[in-house]
């Protein structure tokens, strides 16, 4: 999630490259080739060097989750007497869409729930049928996150949401409002103890993900919600009164105001500055924990859900769920379905995922069992409880860049109301045209 900016950086370049299937024109040949290649396979595989996909279950994930996924996959392989291959893919999402369409993708893919819209749009993943008993074991909004068009598409194993870290030396309390947090941080800045008061990663192109708590606390929203909890891309709330109030707040906190929010603080340095004791507080997710603990010591920091601004709404960060998906065109669907619906869908598998992927677990049983040992994760789990699932609708793709740019411009001193209105108009036009 924090990799949104850096991912976006290469996305445009790589997405286009990484896209292919059986061509726009030629249609029916795509159906013929898999069977014929399967027929040719035995003779070919004898002489050819090992090719990806030989295993009876192939799973794609990113480099960070590789060890965790490999552990649960190996267990599954042992239980079923099969071979598995787990591969770390740089651009997991786009490469998966591409490869799946071309018929040489994996059987299972692991990734964030906000991929679902795009994956479904491309017919790349299958819905899962889970029993009520299975579903009941998971955090309710994690299940909501992986639900799309009324179907469950992924099995969530971890949840992510932003929380508030503070350096105990400068901001030791548990704060009831962001104003208090900023006041404490600014005092430390004024005293020359730290360089920045509250790190919110934005950078020069902005970061809508990290700004979401501030937007929601001032009453703004991205998409309105239908009665059933799904998002309605036609109801945009950036230029709503709450959205405009948030824009004004961002301006006041920006470089022309109190200089709390700065474009020089980006995903590249936000966490590191805090971990080195050069920032009083930090808005970040569970991925920052290891660095913070290493930099400030086990007792050097506090962690709490992000409070709202005084007298305003509570801050609602985005909830992100990490999940397993069954590929629509996978070679080994049976094992893929079994792996996702049974292989990892239990306390042992989810505990392994928690231990190696280092995310707050989505399975309530595991969450409870570790709450005492790992209070920080419990805080993040609570933050996730308060959060709203990041919209998975494809329309979201039209939101990130313009909204981030608008935030960045406002921090730099652009007129808040008109900038926010512009961003909303741009997003609305893009959604309408698609």
């Amino acid at each position, binding site marked *: 999630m924090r*990799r949104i900016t*850096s*991912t976006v950086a*290469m996305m445009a*370049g*790589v997405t*286009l*490259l*990484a*896209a*292919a*299937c*059986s*061509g726009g024109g030629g249609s029916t040949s795509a159906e013929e*080739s898999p069977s*014929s*290649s399967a027929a*040719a396979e035995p003779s*070919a*595989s004898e002489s*050819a*060097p090992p*090719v*990806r996909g030989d295993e009876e279950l192939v799973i794609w994930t*990113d*480099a*960070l989750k*590789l*060890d965790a996924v490999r552990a649960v996959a190996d267990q599954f392989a042992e239980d079923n007497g099969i071979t598995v291959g787990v*591969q*770390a*893919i*740089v*651009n997991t999402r786009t*490469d998966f869409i*591409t*490869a799946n369409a*071309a*018929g*040489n993708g994996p059987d299972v893919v692991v990734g964030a729930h906000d991929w679902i819209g795009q994956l479904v749009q491309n017919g790349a993943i299958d819905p899962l049928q889970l029993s009520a008993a299975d579903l009941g074991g998971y955090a309710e909004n994690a299940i909501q996150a992986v639900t799309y068009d009324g179907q469950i598409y992924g099995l969530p194993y971890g949840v992510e949401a932003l929380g508030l870290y503070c350096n105990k030396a400068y901001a030791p309390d548990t704060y009831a409002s962001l104003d208090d947090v900023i006041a404490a941080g600014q005092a430390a800045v004024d005293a020359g103890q730290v360089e920045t008061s509250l790190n919110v990663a934005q950078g020069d192109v902005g970061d809508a993900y990290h700004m979401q708590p501030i937007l929601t606390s001032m009453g703004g929203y991205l998409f309105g919600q239908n009665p059933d909890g799904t998002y309605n891309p036609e109801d945009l709330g950036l230029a709503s009164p709450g959205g405009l109030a948030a824009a004004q707040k961002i301006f006041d906190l920006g470089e022309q105001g109190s200089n709390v929010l700065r474009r020089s603080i980006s*995903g*590249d*340095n*936000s*966490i*590191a*500055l805090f*971990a*080195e004791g*050069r920032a009083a507080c930090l808005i970040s997710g569970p*991925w920052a924990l290891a*660095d913070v603990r290493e*930099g400030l010591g086990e007792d050097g920091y506090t962690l709490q859900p992000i409070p709202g601004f005084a007298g305003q709404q509570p801050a609602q960060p985005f909830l992100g769920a990490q999940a397993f998906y069954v590929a629509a065109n996978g070679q080994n669907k049976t094992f893929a379905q079994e792996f996702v619906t049974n292989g990892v869908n239990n306390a042992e598998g989810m505990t392994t995922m928690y231990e190696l992927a280092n995310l707050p677990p989505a399975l309530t049983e595991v969450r409870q069992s570790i709450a005492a040992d790992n209070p920080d994760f419990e805080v993040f789990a609570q933050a996730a409880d308060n959060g709203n699932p990041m919209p998975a609708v494809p329309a979201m793709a039209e939101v990130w860049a313009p909204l981030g740019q608008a935030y960045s411009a406002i921090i730099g001193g652009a007129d808040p109301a008109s900038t926010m209105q512009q961003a909303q108009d741009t997003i609305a036009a893009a959604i309408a045209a698609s």
Partner: protein
Amino acid sequence: MSTVAPATGTAGAATSTRRPGRGGDGVDPSRAAVRRRRWWKEVGWRHVVGIIAVVYALVPVVYLLSASVNPIGSVVSTDLFPTRVSLGNYADLFNNPSRPFARWFLNTLVIAVVVVVAQLFASSLAAYAFSRFRFTGRRGGLLTLLLIQLFPQFLAAVALYQMFTGIGEVAPAIGLDTLPGYILVMMGGALGQVWLIKGFFDSIPVELDEAAKIDGAGHAQVFFQVILPLVRPILATTGLLVFVGVFGEFILASIFLRETEIKTVAVGLYGVLDADRSNNLGWFAAASVIVSIPVVLLFQYLQKYIVGGITAGAVKG
């Protein structure tokens, strides 16, 4: 200046091998001062320029080195000169099974060597034809070649992906996710060095080949035994360019090479940095330093060819 020029070869060499300004050896001090002034005027200022340029070139490199020995390895903790030094990042390069750097490095070297040799061979052949033969379509061919080279191959990545998906079904050994397949794609630039090499061929007197032909050599012999030895400098230069190009190629490699074991350093490194940019900088920097070494070594080795120049080649040949 004009009167000095013919003599500089010896005089300059003499001064520069002895430290100027030492005076000494009973030489008249005023002559030493003149000599020093002349040294500054002719050679010394060049060193000043060179040193400034080196500083400009090296600051980011020093930063990279500093980051590579920074045990914390984060962006903000890295300064130009390291305060804490540890070789942990380098050790981790070779001890982390989920990031098999050594394997990536080896893959890249193999690809680079094959592509360099093949591209140089194909390019020199074509350059020879363009330089020495007159045939219809020659001019058009040269221009077309340039035009096609202008098309960034990565724009056609979608098409290449589809193509290699098809190839992989028939011949898995050269399909997607194989080193030979990726090498083939890189061979799309087989004629990328034609223009540069041809320019150099043009500067070799045609009399050389004509004389050889009079002596009974065929066109192939002229090419392999007369011309090629003479153009070593340009082969060295272009070879280095191709080598560096292969090391830096990222976009196509990221699509073609997915299996951890067959990635190139570019894909592998980017994946690591992308996963956690602020933290993996140290690891990334250490890897970058190692990756740069072959290019530096290659350049050291090739310098004598690049610098040797054509006349030296002719004499040796």
